[in-house]
């Protein structure tokens, strides 16, 4: 499987993601600098976690203007899989590749802890290897993960089965509306999620619950 991880100034989980992709897919992913204007043919594009451009102004806002993002949008439109994790999710939201926005956590504090996620939809190339309703462990580490969208959008997301992950209500770490942790775009080829599956892919890390996302993509291209 061919994958590419976009590196922005201030990305800080790109190495975690490169490592996880190589471990789970067996292939070295490409690291693409944000100044690039085109992307090679790949099966998966990942926007990693971190504080691109310091998260200044709005999280993901300035990264959304990087040259590479036009290429990412084109690929997404062509149906290439795009995964945005944490800061990557914030960039996807800012660029409109997924609806809604990630606001400051309700308690206003950065939060790093393990949460429980309910796999709300298995109908995507990112979640097919899980079972619907399955509860998985996954770490979060963010300051602005409080998902928000207007009622109409939320209802549509639910109606179209586009909520990929929900925090189990007792572990919602940031006040996200309707416990939303990850959502899909209309064509279901773009997934944005706040939790960090790349940090839970092998026993040494305390578990492998995050592996399913990468295995699902593998299965999809097989």
């Amino acid at each position, binding site marked *: 499987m061919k994958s590419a991880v976009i590196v922005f100034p201030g990305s800080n989980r790109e190495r975690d993601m490169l490592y996880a992709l190589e471990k789970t897919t067996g292939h070295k992913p490409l690291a693409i600098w944000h100044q690039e204007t085109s992307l090679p043919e790949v099966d998966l594009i990942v926007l990693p976690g971190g504080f691109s451009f310091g998260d200044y*102004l*709005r999280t993901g*806002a*300035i990264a959304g*203007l990087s040259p590479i993002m036009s290429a990412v949008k084109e690929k997404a439109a062509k149906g290439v899989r795009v995964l945005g994790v944490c800061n990557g999710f914030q960039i996807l939201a*800012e660029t*409109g590749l997924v609806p809604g*926005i990630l*606001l*400051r*956590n*309700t*308690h*206003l504090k950065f939060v790093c802890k393990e949460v429980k996620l309910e796999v709300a939809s298995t109908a995507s190339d990112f979640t097919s290897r899980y079972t619907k309703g399955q509860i998985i462990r996954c770490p979060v580490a963010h300051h602005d993960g*409080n998902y*928000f969208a*207007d009622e109409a959008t939320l209802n549509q997301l639910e109606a179209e089965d586009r909520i990929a992950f929900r925090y189990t209500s007792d572990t919602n770490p940031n*006040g996200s*509306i309707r416990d939303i942790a990850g959502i899909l775009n209309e064509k279901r080829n773009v997934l944005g999620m706040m939790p960090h599956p790349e940090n839970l892919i092998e026993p040494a890390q305390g578990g492998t619950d995050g592996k399913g996302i990468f295995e699902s993509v593998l299965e999809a291209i097989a």
Partner: protein
Amino acid sequence: MKARIKITLKNGVLDPQGKAIGNALHQLGFDSVGDVRQGKYIEIDLRETDKAKARAALDEMCKRVLANTVIENYDIELDGE
């Protein structure tokens, strides 16, 4: 010339910061405090003498970068206005 831009959340958009500030103020006994909303205030020095041109440029900056118009409103104020 100098531009002053206020960026505020649209009505209906959740404002965690504003809410937290309001709570803190109440707990400190500022009972007269009602709704609190937090926004951004940006000052920009512009090398531009033509007001109209300046306003047009600032408007574009707000749309493309400074504000997320899905959830935010912006208000531009130019020197001597």
